[in-house]
């Protein structure tokens, strides 16, 4: 449907127009709107966008050609047909010249005419618009390409320029003279003027146009580069150059782009050289290697020359993907190929893994394949590590579990099964305690911890909510040893505290300024509750060198020091304290103070002084006594000497002279006289024996012991042989058992055996057969020796007298003796630290026993300390 607007103020004319058109056109072919004034008509054009407008020139708001011109200015693109009541040929020509499509006279119009005029107007307007548009496009194209055209009328030396020329030269069209010289002088860059003039001259003289690049300078100073090229040279009939036309193109931007391109190529090259990926460029048609970047040569260990100018399938390291031409064709066919991990072998045989990406693209009508090769050996290793880390929970020696939102066990590593025990199944309810803490961790969205015993071990479970808190990971840490250590440490701490509180000693800590920083109960009791914070010297009584004595501790020269110091007790009394101080040092060895213990030794000191005094007195007394004793000993020795010499001399005389009496005066003596002489001699001898025994006995107390290891059996046997002459042995059944050895003085112990055995012999002398048995055994820490006989025995009632000096239990007539023998035995045994005793019964024999301490018998050792 063709939309038509009629601007007509006469309703009759309008009705006629409608009728004509209705009669001529097919129904619905035209849609007609009518506007009674120009103003309304303009409004309708805007609103309904008619294809064609019929315009009456005589309207209420406008008259004549002016009506058309107003409309034309407002709507230049709408085809307009003048529909006039005036037959005015002049007006009609003016209207068509001004751009109207047609001029219809109302009186001569028919429907067909109107229809055809409308149709033509529409078509014509359309083609006019195309022409206009193409002209506009040309202008636009010239502007965009910065190409201007010119014509040089050589004879007049005048230039005609297209619009774009003015823009290229930055010259105002209005002030353009068209004079070539003016232009050369005003707009060409001074450096390029000579070349331009030479070119112009060459054309003018020889008709040989020379293409030329030069610079123009705009009035504002802007410099542009242009390219001038001449076209056809037109000559006049005489053959002289008449006009020359050509173009000028602004190539400033292109030059700039070309520079930019050059830079970008440089940049690309630099990228290629420095890339941390290997890059290989192939000719996509031939498969020839064109270029390889340094990174790839470095990675593979080949030189640039070893790779370039070879066919890609000749490269050993790429044989897994491009082993032959078919593979290469595939590479070319598929514009893009990617291999995630491709094993490559380097020049030195090392295996590396790479990522391979190939791209095919066109470069200056030349298809190339760019292969990017990235070393992913490190990444693969990292991936492997991640893989092993993923296995880590299974290998973890500590329990690792996962519990989901429903409290179900999602994972438990072997350690978890081993330590937690019980029945744990994946997908079933988790152990209650762990399930509970997992739920709490999920609830609070943060880590939770709990300690629990698993058998003999104690674990700290850390529940960590993960992901979108859909599950909780639990990590068990075996803290058994730590707990044990903590418990032990706590017990130790308690013990120490208790100990420090319980000890009667004062325990104090001072810092390096000697200010008390801590005191135990005893310390508080002594100095007072306010001692902490006071300097130690506050409690000193009198002048003291205490600080000097402990200075070495603080200097680090010594670790401990002991001193005595008089200090003031809380009740004001001066007390003597015995201090032991030990330096406290931190990890770096710096002294931080000292820990000291003190004891109140005031009383002790008094006692000590007392004891010293007593000791001194005692020593004095002992010295005196010793001197007395030594004097007494000397006297005793002198006495013994006298006794042995002087007492025996008269006896010898009595005996000797009685003997002379018997020998020289035998005849003068009767039998009784002779008997009396015998009695005298017997008693003299007896007195001699008494004196000898007594001296021996007293000597025992004075001589020192010389102990050696003695074979008691041998010693006893020898003593028996010495005590009994061979002829006397026949009547004696003598037996001797194994006797433990002893450490004793040989001379003395021989005396013991001799005395005991001669006693046994003596007291069995009345038996038809004597039986004497010597036995011994080690018993406890002593050796016991016994001499048993079947002799006369004695009454146990007098056993106490048995070992006394000169004590006898038998009459002289019965058994001879001085009564000193057993006393000697007793004294010797006791001097050896042993005991002696006897058991007997009258006429039933006797057992004499003595013991010697079993001293440590060293292997082969025979000397005493």
């Amino acid at each position, binding site marked *: 449907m063709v939309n038509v607007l009629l601007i007509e103020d006469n309703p009759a004319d309008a009705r006629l127009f409608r009728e004509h058109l209705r009669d001529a056109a097919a129904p619905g072919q035209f849609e007609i709107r009518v506007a009674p004034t120009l103003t309304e008509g303009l409004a309708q054009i805007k609103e309904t966008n008619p294809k064609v407008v019929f315009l009456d020139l005589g309207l209420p708001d406008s008259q004549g050609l002016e009506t058309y011109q107003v409309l034309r200015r407002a709507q230049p693109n709408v085809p307009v047909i003048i529909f006039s009541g005036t037959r005015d040929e002049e007006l009609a020509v003016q209207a068509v010249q001004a751009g109207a499509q047609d001029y219809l006279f109302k009186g001569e119009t028919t429907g067909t005419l109107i229809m055809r005029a409308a149709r033509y107007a529409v078509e014509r307007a359309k083609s006019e618009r195309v022409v206009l548009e193409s002209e506009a496009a040309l202008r636009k194209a010239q502007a965009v390409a910065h190409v201007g055209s010119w014509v040089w009328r050589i004879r007049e030396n005048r230039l005609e320029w297209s619009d774009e020329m003015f823009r290229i030269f930055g010259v105002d069209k209005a002030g353009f003279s068209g004079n070539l010289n003016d232009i050369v002088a005003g707009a060409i860059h001074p450096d390029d003027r000579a070349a331009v003039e030479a070119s112009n001259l060459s054309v003018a003289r020889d008709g040989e146009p020379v293409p030329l690049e030069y610079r123009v300078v705009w009035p504002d100073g802007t410099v542009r580069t242009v390219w001038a090229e001449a076209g056809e040279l037109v000559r006049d009939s005489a053959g002289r150059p008449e006009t020359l036309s050509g173009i000028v193109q602004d190539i400033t931007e292109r030059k700039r782009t070309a520079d930019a391109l050059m830079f970008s190529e440089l940049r690309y090259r630099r990228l290629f050289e420095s890339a941390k990926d290997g890059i290989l460029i192939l000719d996509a048609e031939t498969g020839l290697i064109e270029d390889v970047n340094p990174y790839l040569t470095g990675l593979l260990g080949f030189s640039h020359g070893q790779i370039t100018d070879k066919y890609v399938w000749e490269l050993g390291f790429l044989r897994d993907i491009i082993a032959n031409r078919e593979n290469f064709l595939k590479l070319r066919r598929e514009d893009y190929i990617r291999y995630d991990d491709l094993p490559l072998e380097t020049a030195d045989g090392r295996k590396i893994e790479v990522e391979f990406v190939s791209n095919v693209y066109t470069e200056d009508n030349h298809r190339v394949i760019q292969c990017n090769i990235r070393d992913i050996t490190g990444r693969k290793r990292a991936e492997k590590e991640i893989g092993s880390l993923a296995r880590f929970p299974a290998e973890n020696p500590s329990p690792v579990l996962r519990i989901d939102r429903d409290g179900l066990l999602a994972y438990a590593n072997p350690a978890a099964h081993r330590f937690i025990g019980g029945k744990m199944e994946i997908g079933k309810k988790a152990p209650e305690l762990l399930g509970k803490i997992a739920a709490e961790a999920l609830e609070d969205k943060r880590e939770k911890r709990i300690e629990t015993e698993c058998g003999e071990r104690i674990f700290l479970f850390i529940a960590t909510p993960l992901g979108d808190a859909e599950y909780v990971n639990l990590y068990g840490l075996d803290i058994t040893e730590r707990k044990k250590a903590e418990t032990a440490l706590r017990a130790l701490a308690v013990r120490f505290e208790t100990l420090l509180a319980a000890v009667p000693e004062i325990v104090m800590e001072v810092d390096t300024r000697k200010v008390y920083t801590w005191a135990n109960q005893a310390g508080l009791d002594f100095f007072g509750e306010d001692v902490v914070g006071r300097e130690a010297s506050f409690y000193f009584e009198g002048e003291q060198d205490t600080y000097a004595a402990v200075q070495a501790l603080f200097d680090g020269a010594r670790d401990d020091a002991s001193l005595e110091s008089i200090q003031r007790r809380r009740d004001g009394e001066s007390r003597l304290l015995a201090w032991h101080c030990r330096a406290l040092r931190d990890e770096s060895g710096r002294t931080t103070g000292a820990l000291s213990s003190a004891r109140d030794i005031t009383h002790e000191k008094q006692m000590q002084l007392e004891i010293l005094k007593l000791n001194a007195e005692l020593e004095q007394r002992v010295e005196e006594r010793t001197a007395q004793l030594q004097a007494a000993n000397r006297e005793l020795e002198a006495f*013994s*000497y006298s006794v*042995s*010499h*002087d007492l*025996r*001399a008269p*006896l*010898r*005389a009595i*005996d*000797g*002279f009685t*003997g*002379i009496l018997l020998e020289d005066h035998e005849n003068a003596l009767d039998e009784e006289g002779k008997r009396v002489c015998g009695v005298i*001699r017997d008693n*003299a*001898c007896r*007195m*001699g024996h008494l004196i*000898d025994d007594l*001296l*021996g006995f007293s*000597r025992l107390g004075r001589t020192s012991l010389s102990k050696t290891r003695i074979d008691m059996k041998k010693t006893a046997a020898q003593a028996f042989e010495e005590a009994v002459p061979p002829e006397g042995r026949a009547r004696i059944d003598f037996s001797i058992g194994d006797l433990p050895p002893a450490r004793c003085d040989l001379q003395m112990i021989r005396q013991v055996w001799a005395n005991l055995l001669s006693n046994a012999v003596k007291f069995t002398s009345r038996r038809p057969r004597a039986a004497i048995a010597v036995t011994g055994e080690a018993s406890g820490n002593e050796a016991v020796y016994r001499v048993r006989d079947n002799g006369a025995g004695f009454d146990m009632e007098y056993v106490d007298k048995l070992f006394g000096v000169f004590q006898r239990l038998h009459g002289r007539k019965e058994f001879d003796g001085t009564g000193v023998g057993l006393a000697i035995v007793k004294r010797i045994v006791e001097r050896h630290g042993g005991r002696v005793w006897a058991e007997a019964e009258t006429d039933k024999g006797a057992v004499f026993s003595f013991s010697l301490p079993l001293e440590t018998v060293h292997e082969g050792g025979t000397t005493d300390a």
Partner: protein
Amino acid sequence: MHDCDAVEILVIEDNPEDVELIIRALKKRHLANEVSVVEDGVQALDFIFCRGEYSGRNAAHRPKVIFLDLKLPKLNGIEVLKILKSDEHTKRIPVVVVSSSREDPDIKAAYELGANSYVVKPVDFESFLEAMDHTGYFWLLVNQVAK
């Protein structure tokens, strides 16, 4: 007394009873004629070295054996022994030390000074004679043989 020069046995003893008993014992062995007796250490040295009251004695006639009691007035037996054993002329004369007691510590000292034997004077006279036989007589005989 008797001939001091031809002395065989010199008895140095202060106890007259002991002297009498010793001489009686020597008589029984028929040695009494050659016995000289002095009563203290000083007299003993005078006799041996022919000094003092014995200055007229022939020093060449040395006793063949000396019986020396340890307990003597003035110089005691040990002192006499020391002098005898340190003099070139007398140190080879056998000296039998006579003591009242076996316990006498001087016996040890006497041996260390070079005494040749010792005898304890027992109370029993018979035993004394026996002891003389075992000691003095032996030395007397040894010296006679050596002569």
